[in-house]
């Protein structure tokens, strides 16, 4: 609003709505109240059992922003450079929405329509985000590269892999910051499925992801630079997800000068 990107005639602060911030687990589903802060997710025992959620929550902007920003706000804003979009799209995620007279549930892929545009109708609010914890042998990783902590990433990659007997049996690869919405790199996924995760297979997938990216040149980097970043980040995220799927503990998240 300070940058005059939007000038709403009225603002309603959701912070005072009781019971809108919570993290609960029931039958393999994790429920986040819309007003749950990134910092709460970063420090949540429940969320940390799905490492890609921790990767994302722990690296969004800086501690001041993580103490105020919420998962519901991030999803509802649908910023092309938002972190939660690509991460939650690697999981089975639903958005629970409440309106003046009814409520409904929208799958996250159907919720994001375009940059800053969601399936929310006038008068509707995001009430809860629910995520199915991944099955056995499945793990994800989120790697985002940014110039410094408080800024949006230049590019990001969110990957979920199922690894059985060394071979990849399922994959989701989402790219952030390089399109109007998070981009699902289906050809990159296809390059992995049914294959052993060798360096060559991973390179093929990364190159397919690079081709799927549609970045714009801006102050965060040129088109070519962002494409090159995508290739590296996808490879890194695949390696980490594969190790996690085998049960290893691996750190991942946002990378920036000073943190690395």
């Amino acid at each position, binding site marked *: 609003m300070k940058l005059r990107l939007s000038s709403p005639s009225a*603002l309603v*602060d959701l912070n005072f709505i009781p019971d809108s911030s919570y993290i609960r687990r029931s039958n393999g589903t994790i429920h986040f109240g819309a007003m749950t802060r990134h910092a709460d997710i970063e420090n949540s025992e429940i969320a940390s059992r799905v490492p890609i959620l921790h990767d994302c929550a722990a690296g969004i902007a*800086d*501690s*001041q*922003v993580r*103490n*105020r920003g919420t998962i519901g706000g991030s999803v509802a804003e649908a910023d092309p450079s938002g972190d939660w979009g690509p991460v939650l799209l690697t999981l089975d995620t639903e958005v629970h929405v409440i309106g003046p007279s009814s409520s409904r549930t929208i799958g996250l892929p159907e919720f994001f329509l375009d940059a800053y545009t969601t399936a929310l109708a006038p008068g509707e609010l995001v009430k809860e985000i629910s995520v199915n914890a991944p099955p056995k042998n499945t793990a994800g990783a989120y790697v985002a590269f940014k110039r410094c902590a*408080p*800024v949006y990433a230049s590019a990001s990659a969110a990957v979920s892999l199922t690894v059985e007997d060394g071979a990849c049996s399922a994959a989701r690869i989402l790219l952030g910051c390089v399109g109007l919405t998070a981009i699902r790199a289906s050809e990159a996924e296809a390059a992995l499925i049914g294959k052993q995760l060798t360096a060559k297979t991973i390179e093929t997938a990364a190159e397919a992801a690079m081709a799927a990216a549609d970045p714009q040149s801006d102050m965060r980097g040129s088109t070519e630079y962002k494409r090159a970043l995508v290739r590296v980040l996808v490879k890194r995220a695949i390696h980490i997800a594969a190790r996690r799927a085998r049960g290893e503990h691996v750190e991942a998240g946002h990378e920036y000068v000073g943190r690395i």
Partner: protein
Amino acid sequence: MSEGFDLVPVQIRVNGTLYERTIEPRVLLVDFIREELDLTGTHIGCDTTYCGACTVLMNGANVKSCTVFAVQAHGSEITTIEGLARDGKLHPVQEAFAANHGLQCGYCTPGLIMSTVYLLSKRQKPTDQEIRKGIAGNTCRCTGYQNIFKAIRAAAAADDNG
């Protein structure tokens, strides 16, 4: 006052004192602190949630007060740099910044100190990596951060972090 805005009553506890004011809803918390309460230790640097000069504690958590409306802090407890010293004695983090020359021009210092106080409230003995992450939302254009690091390490090593 702008047309069309009703004034809103707020109660905000700042450094232990409860303040009741009637303000425009668009007033930012940092402006409320500086202009209404005349507590000018909290600085405005970028005004866009980047630099962290305006960092204060809101119910114990560090936040950028340029990106909180004062009305959102209704019912909250705010701590600013002025609220750290006790009985004329500087807070251990303030002492550590002074002793280690953790500042040059001093503009970013109140924000850095508030983020450090928050970090040490969560992690009594942070690793270097945790210190970097803890102050990643605070920009200093003078020091190169080396002495700020030294100051934070020294504050963490002190017995009483306050």
